[in-house]
């Protein structure tokens, strides 16, 4: 556990000691605000809800989360520091969890910094704060799932750009499974039961239940086990590829 903390601290500091953190946070805040106010027309809707804010998260995370996570293992393998890391008395689990949690915490910080949105909507009307809270939780879990996918692809390639592109594609697929257009397309030639089973694996459908203000244990279990699964795959890939 203490080694997990050491890895986590090192990674998190790494973000803030390079421009990555500031670029990411600024872009994230501008993009969420921009989408909410200019595309979703938050003011014109005249509804005291942060729905027009959260609805963009799956799409913004699609690019921003892989950008945060792409370097986690790629860089380690490229610069050879992985040899250093795994000859220190650190277990594989501690290293993987430490890195993942550091990047997740970093995204969490960016998410917390969107609090002016909550203040705005609270000033203009009387929103349902319960829904806002579950939406934030859902958004954070969604980011974790994206990040776990990114960790896996980061371990696969020494090249950060390749890691990034593969992560974006994989995350996009995980979202699209549940989007109406795609499920309609599947319904065209598959029995409804099967197409529903496929869309049940989507990030999108599970995120939506949080947006409705539900604390659905199934959705929480889904995200947590998705993260667990991806990180396990990450460990296997690392064991296989670390020597290269």
């Amino acid at each position, binding site marked *: 556990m203490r080694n997990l903390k*050491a*890895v986590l601290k*090192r990674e998190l*500091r*790494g973000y803030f000691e390079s421009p990555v953190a500031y670029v990411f946070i600024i872009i994230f805040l501008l993009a969420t605000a921009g989408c909410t106010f200019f595309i979703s027309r938050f003011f014109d809707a005249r509804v005291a809800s942060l729905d027009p804010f959260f609805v963009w998260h799956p799409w913004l995370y699609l690019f921003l989360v892989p950008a945060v996570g792409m370097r986690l293992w790629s860089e380690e393998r490229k610069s050879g*520091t992985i*040899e250093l890391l795994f000859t*220190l*008395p650190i277990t594989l689990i501690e290293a993987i969890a430490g890195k993942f949690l550091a990047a997740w915490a970093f995204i969490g910080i960016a998410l917390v910094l969107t609090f002016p949105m909550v203040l705005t909507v609270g000033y203009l009307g009387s929103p349902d704060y319960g829904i806002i809270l579950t939406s934030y939780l859902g958004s954070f879990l969604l980011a974790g799932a994206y990040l776990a996918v990114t960790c896996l692809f980061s371990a696969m390639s020494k090249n950060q750009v390749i890691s990034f592109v593969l992560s974006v594609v994989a995350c996009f697929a995980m979202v699209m499974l549940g989007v109406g257009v795609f499920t309609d397309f599947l319904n065209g030639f598959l029995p409804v039961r099967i197409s529903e089973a496929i869309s049940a694996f989507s990030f999108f459908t599970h995120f939506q239940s949080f947006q409705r203000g539900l604390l659905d244990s199934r959705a929480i279990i889904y995200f947590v086990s998705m993260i667990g699964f991806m990180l396990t795959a990450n460990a296997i890939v690392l064991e296989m590829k670390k020597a290269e």
Partner: protein
Amino acid sequence: MIAVESLAKSFGSIRAVDGISFTVGKGEILGFLGPNGAGKSTTMKMITTFLPPTSGTAKVADFDIWENPLEVRARIGYLPESAPSYKDMNVYDFLMFTAEVRGYDGEERKNRVMRMLETCNLKEVAWQLIDTLSKGYRQRVGFAQALLHDPEYLVLDEPTDGLDPNQKQEVRALIRRMGREKCIILSTHILEEVEAVCSRAIIIGNGRIVADGTPEALRSRSVLHGAVTLELTGEGIKDALADLQKIEGVARVEELKNDDLPAKTAVAEGEDAAGSAKNGKSSLRVRLFPKKGVAIAHEAAKFVHERKWEVDAFTLEKGDLNEVFYNLTKGGEKA
């Protein structure tokens, strides 16, 4: 003690390490010699638990690399090839990180890092990003990281790579000093380094051990070992060649031409030749090879003295590690 038992590693169809066994005890400095790609680094990566062997095992202080990899890691200080380190950190933070992972806290952690900065002469760059450091400094950061927990076992993969000659001397002195109470394995392809530092050398060719012994013992395998090289001046010296055959214990006499010499001595020889031409004398360079196991230096000296030749140089050859290395590793390639 580090005990390696028939360690082997394959990458696909390539057998990088092919059943290596040896033990190294406390107070020993073992040099791993071998051409590039012979399997030195791979062997070290397996001992330090970075790579799992295809078969075989190794024990460090009785901890098996399969069963107790963390115990093994805790006891080893490892300097990987080209000393990788986190380039986005400064030297101090990087060492603080390794100290934390090594299990040090608070004051103790700080003290250890400060001591390492001093030992490795890193004080003046402690607050610089590792990214901005020169190769020599990065190598020292790697050293500091490996020595921080004062490990009993040190595994150093090409420790003097990329250092200038002065730094090389410093590092070698440091290794020799540590070698008294530690157990050190180092790899290199610099032969003088083995002679200067190691108490024992293992030559690896194509993943196998082709020779194992003290540097002196390895050198004695050279054809040159025990040979006497003479530079003689005198009148009618050219006839001496046949005469020298008569020395007791000499198997063979060979005349050395100027182009056999390394460039530096060739120049000196050139001057000499000019000098001797003035005197109307000629000079001769010969090498006397002894019969197996016979010491000829004494006999040779006596013989030359009796003939009243002028001796410009008299060298007893110790043998050439380069030659031994070449023969052993080339021989392996053919097989």
